[in-house]
């Protein structure tokens, strides 16, 4: 007992304790983040310089997706996924993937517009699939209210009613949709990237998709009429705010109120 209590007083004890604490939290975090499953899927359809695209593909994508995009253990076949899929995955920087994980993250695009175009063309030439949407579907001039209804029925359960994103199983998630271009939203709907279901034109018509994009862009540009939106995360964020900021400020006032003036 005595020996232990003396050791506890040792100057190095604090450092040892800190190290232990760091190791434990780090370890816990590492365990907590080890999550299962990965993979991402893609699509096809497009035009001209497929040859350039093929070169780019072989240099950058074939490691996982295989020669001729026929797929390997590490990546699915891209035959028939269409140009829309390539434009979405490469255009949002999800592909090429940084590392295998539960899900490909959005990051700065690795290829410029022309290269993305060439890659799309190459993959589209391998088999028919959803094409890149036409301009008039992305003009954000649809019916926002109808789009809102479609969004709530088909999208809100994963992406949240205010498009703030949400959690899926085992480390996957549905991303927030603010700052995503209308084109990419459209392409995601028709191709169903990663674990997102496909919303084909038979399910949600092209006009419906246009309405959804209109709705999303409108609520994004509107902002919240009530002030800062606290991430649009709902009651959890509101509760945290009232406990930390609300009560915090009030406690500050109570301390001032009961302190003596000099």
């Amino acid at each position, binding site marked *: 007992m005595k020996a232990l209590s003396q050791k506890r007083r040792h100057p190095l004890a604090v450092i040892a304790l800190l190290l232990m604490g760091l190791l434990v939290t780090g370890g816990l975090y590492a365990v907590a983040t080890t999550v299962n499953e990965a*993979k991402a899927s893609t699509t096809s359809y497009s035009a001209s310089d497929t040859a350039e695209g093929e070169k780019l593909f072989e240099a950058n994508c074939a490691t996982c997706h295989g020669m001729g995009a026929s797929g390997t253990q590490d990546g699915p076949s891209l035959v028939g996924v269409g140009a829309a899929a390539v434009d979405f995955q490469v255009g949002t920087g999800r592909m090429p993937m940084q590392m295998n994980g539960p899900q490909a993250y959005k990051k700065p695009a690795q290829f410029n517009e022309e290269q993305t175009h060439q890659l799309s063309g190459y993959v589209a030439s391998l088999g028919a699939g959803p094409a890149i949407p036409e301009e008039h579907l992305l003009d954000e001039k649809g019916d926002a209210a109808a789009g809102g*209804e479609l969004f709530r*029925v*088909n999208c809100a359960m994963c992406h949240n009613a205010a498009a703030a994103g949400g959690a899926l199983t085992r480390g996957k998630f549905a991303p927030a949709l603010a700052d995503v271009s209308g084109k990419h939203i459209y392409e995601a709907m028709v191709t169903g990237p990663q*674990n997102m279901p496909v919303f084909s034109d038979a*399910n949600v018509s092209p006009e419906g998709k246009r309405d959804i994009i209109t709705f999303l862009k409108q609520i994004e540009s509107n902002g919240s009429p009530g002030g800062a939106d606290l991430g649009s995360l709902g009651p959890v964020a509101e509760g945290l705010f009232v406990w930390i900021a609300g009560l915090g400020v009030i406690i500050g006032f109570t301390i001032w*109120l009961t302190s003596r*003036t000099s």
Partner: protein
Amino acid sequence: MGNHSDGSPNHSGTVATAGQNEVEKFQDPGLPPHRLRLADTDPKAAKRAERQVAVLFGTSVVGTLIFLVAYFAIDLGEGAGIATIRLQNALLGLGTAFAMLGIGTGIVHWAKALMPDHEVSEERHAIRTEEDRQAAVRIVDDIVEETGIKRRPLIRNTLLGAVALAPLPAIAVFGDLGPRPDKKLAHTMWAPEEGKLKRLTRDPDGTPIKASDVTLGSAFHVIPEGLNELHEGKLNEKAKAVVLLMRLDPASLKPSAGREDWSYNGIVAYSKICTHVGCPVALYEQQTHHLLCPCHQSTFDLTQECKVIFGPASRPLPQLPIAVDNEGYLVATSDFKEPVGPSYWERDEHERSINS
């Protein structure tokens, strides 16, 4: 662990010896001497505090003006955008905050800096005096005695009985708050009407779905044909009948006995109402074939007939038997074979009556 935990005074100076008496305790030195504030001694400081209070009250007046200007000068009429509403809300709030905080901080500052700050001590008095207590007990005893309730058990018992029963009407009178449940929870709109099978239609517009529309990896949110035309109880029916329609590789489905013909070419339909507490289980992961409920994270595996693989639900989602009619549209061949949604006391009884 300290040795003090055994309570033995021999080991540690930190433990009181038994029978510690008053002499061994520190005596209460009484209230500390009063310290004067700046404003008590320096008339200039007092004057300054007075001005500060006045400024705070003045801020309140400014706040009230901000509120009034924001209320009357900002027009919410036609063409006013969200930004206008946000501006008005912020200014109304800011005005109120100034108006209130100005008064509040002003009064408090006044009290703190200028009103006497001598702490005073007041005696506590016993909540009741001993005399009162005895008198009260005597009075209660006398009252009870004079009623004779102890000597007349018949009166006491019948009174107790009457009082116990009297509130019953007050409970019974709420009997018309709602109808009896009967078997309403056991049936949904999917049951064929007059031999006509109900088509699966899109939520929310109600257009029918062809089997060929449902491509691999897609998910359709489905309501029964005719739901949108209902005038009464539309939401009640929708609350039970909503279905999620998905297409998988037929090879990945391993239907159990009796369910072989419930799907069509890998297209399956499952109730969207969670068997836990009834949230819509609408999150479909098309690669893992998992359905996730966003409310409490129950996870169902589509390839195992929606068996629960995670979370608080205990029962698989009910499957809707589907087929294709001669025009190629998807139809429900019958109602669900079990009650949908969260479990309830009579659920098993209802399930048996559906299947008998």
